């Protein structure tokens, strides 16, 4: 009986092409826009988070500044410097610090064969890798504790340095001359998204062990330090402790905000988290609104369908159709429209997403991904709305008084 009913419904749907097509299109478009909207939003969110974390997650970059308060007999306006042992001193005296690394920086000429170019060279500890997301390409590595200990002449280079100096060849294991001194390349940075930096992009830089660097150049001052709290929720406390420790050593006021400028990326994280939570809620609301509008459209169309077919329903009742049959008929009709519409909408959105991903928009919106949970949820929600929207009119249709319906 149900199968015959479905056959008949499909027949009726086919015969009322325009109406069916319009209804289908409404649901189709609703599904497509919701899925697109949500994947778009999530792609932007993921993209922003990814590029922001290209520099590193929840880290503090610390510079030596200039005092702005006179303290302990020193006038204000005194320039401060970090000396070689300061990173070690902080690590020993501030237990809240999880990782810390000094960073020495110089612009130095490099050459490979006849190719010559200057690069920013940084000397750092192995801990730098985790803090600053220095992810080595497969088959290569960052500077190791043993390199540091043995003062090895090894470097880790940015992916653009490799491209410039080695062309398309793999640089790992090759020699690069820096300031005329040969270094072995042990690692190359993977291609990563980075939209913030403090001394050039990582892809354009060269990294070497501090021991090697100091043996060659003998710097007295550290350019800056990078630190990360043991517990990221303690970042604020760690900053205070670092300032206090340095204030004690270099005799400046712990209240002096300009003596030790610290760039805390967690602050940006917190802002972006708040922003994107709002953004996600906004997208969710827009999505739900779209679905509700779609549902109202469906309810409207179903209402009109029942309205314009009252006499038909009356005739069917007169020639022996039971109430349940009329109800099931309209529900199946709604169901067929809802499922065909939402599934084709889903497939179309996949196609659109594929198309959008081919366009050169990656830097702005990232790569659109279809989240299966959200897709299934959207399809279920729009189907449910369609079904609920169709239920009232279907129920009304089945309860029509056949006499009134025939005369109507």
């Amino acid at each position, binding site marked *: 009986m149900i199968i*015959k009913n479905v056959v008949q419904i499909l*027949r009726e749907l086919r*015969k009322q092409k325009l109406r069916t097509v319009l209804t289908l299109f409404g649901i189709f478009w609703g599904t497509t826009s919701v899925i697109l909207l949500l994947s778009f939003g999530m792609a932007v969110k993921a993209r922003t988070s990814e590029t922001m974390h290209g520099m590193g997650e929840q880290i503090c970059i610390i510079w030596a500044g200039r005092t702005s308060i006179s303290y302990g007999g020193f006038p204000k306006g005194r320039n401060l410097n970090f000396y070689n042992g300061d990173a070690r001193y902080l690590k020993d005296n501030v237990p809240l610090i999880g990782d810390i690394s000094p960073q020495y920086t110089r612009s130095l000429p490099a050459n490979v064969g006849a190719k010559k170019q200057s690069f920013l060279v940084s000397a750092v500890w192995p801990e730098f890798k985790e803090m600053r997301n220095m992810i080595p390409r497969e088959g290569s590595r960052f500077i190791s504790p043993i390199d540091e200990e043995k003062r090895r002449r090894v470097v880790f280079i940015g992916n653009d340095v490799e491209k410039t100096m080695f062309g398309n060849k793999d640089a790992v294991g090759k020699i690069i001359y820096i300031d005329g001194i040969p270094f072995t390349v042990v690692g190359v940075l993977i291609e990563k998204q980075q939209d913030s930096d403090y001394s050039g992009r990582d892809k354009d830089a060269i990294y070497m062990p501090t021991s090697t660097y100091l043996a060659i150049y003998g710097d007295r001052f550290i350019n800056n330090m990078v630190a990360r709290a043991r517990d990221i929720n303690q970042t604020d406390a760690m900053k205070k402790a670092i300032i206090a420790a340095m204030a004690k050593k270099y005799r400046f006021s712990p209240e002096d905000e300009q003596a030790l400028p610290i760039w805390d990326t967690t602050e940006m994280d917190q802002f972006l988290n708040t922003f994107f939570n709002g953004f996600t809620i906004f997208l969710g609301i827009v999505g739900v609104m779209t679905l509700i509008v779609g549902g109202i459209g469906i309810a409207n169309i179903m209402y009109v369908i029942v309205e314009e077919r009252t006499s038909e329903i009356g005739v*069917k009742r007169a*020639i*022996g159709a*039971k*109430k*349940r*049959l009329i109800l099931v008929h309209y529900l199946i009709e709604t169901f067929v429209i809802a499922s065909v519409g939402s599934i084709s909408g889903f497939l179309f959105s996949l196609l659109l997403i594929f198309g959008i991903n081919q366009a050169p928009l990656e830097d702005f919106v990232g790569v659109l991904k279809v989240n299966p949970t959200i897709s299934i949820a959207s399809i279920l929600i729009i189907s449910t709305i369609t079904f609920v929207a169709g239920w009232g009119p279907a129920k009304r249709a089945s309860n029509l008084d056949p006499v009134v319906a025939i005369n109507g």
Partner: protein
Amino acid sequence: MIKLENIRKVYSTGKVDVEALRGVNLHIKKGDFVTVIGPSGSGKSTLMHIMGCLDKPTAGRYQLNGQNIQHLNDNQLSELRNREIGFVFQNFNLLPYASAYENVEMPLLFAGVGGKKRKEKVESILKKVGLADRMDHRPNELSGGQKQRVAIARALVNDPNIILADEPTGNLDSTSGREIMELFVSLWEEGHTIVMITHDPRAKDYTEKVVTIIDGLIES
């Protein structure tokens, strides 16, 4: 076959109660061809709806084939309409998007008749009403007389015990009307029981029994 005893029907329209039928008694035997005539508002359509089990009387007893209608529920009434009664309406009431064949097939679908048997029945009945070459035509491709033939075929397809026709010639020109009346007569001669509501005076010439209804009561 049909036994109406003191049938009353009251419509409540808010403040005023309208008494459409005020105690109708009617007896129709198997093989009868009965014409019910009466002015508009006399209650003849109400009578037709009650006889067709589309509506229940407010009071009185209605027996169809010895079965009391009052105690049946909606599902049972639907089955009864499907099996026992064939309706023919003044304005045909065909489904506009379905072909003649599909329109006639519908009662069989509701009755759950299998595919092969359905095809046989629909084709033979359409042949019988003279529409063998019009099976795939939709109502808007058929003349008024042809539409009514499709409706009659639909009424007949489930072998009902009684055919109820409500002004079947009301929307037809006189030639088509005569043809339809002749079709009803031939069906009657085959042994079908027919109750026809009409105000066509010529209808009397075709039928054996005329019932006049005025103000909700039968005048005999």
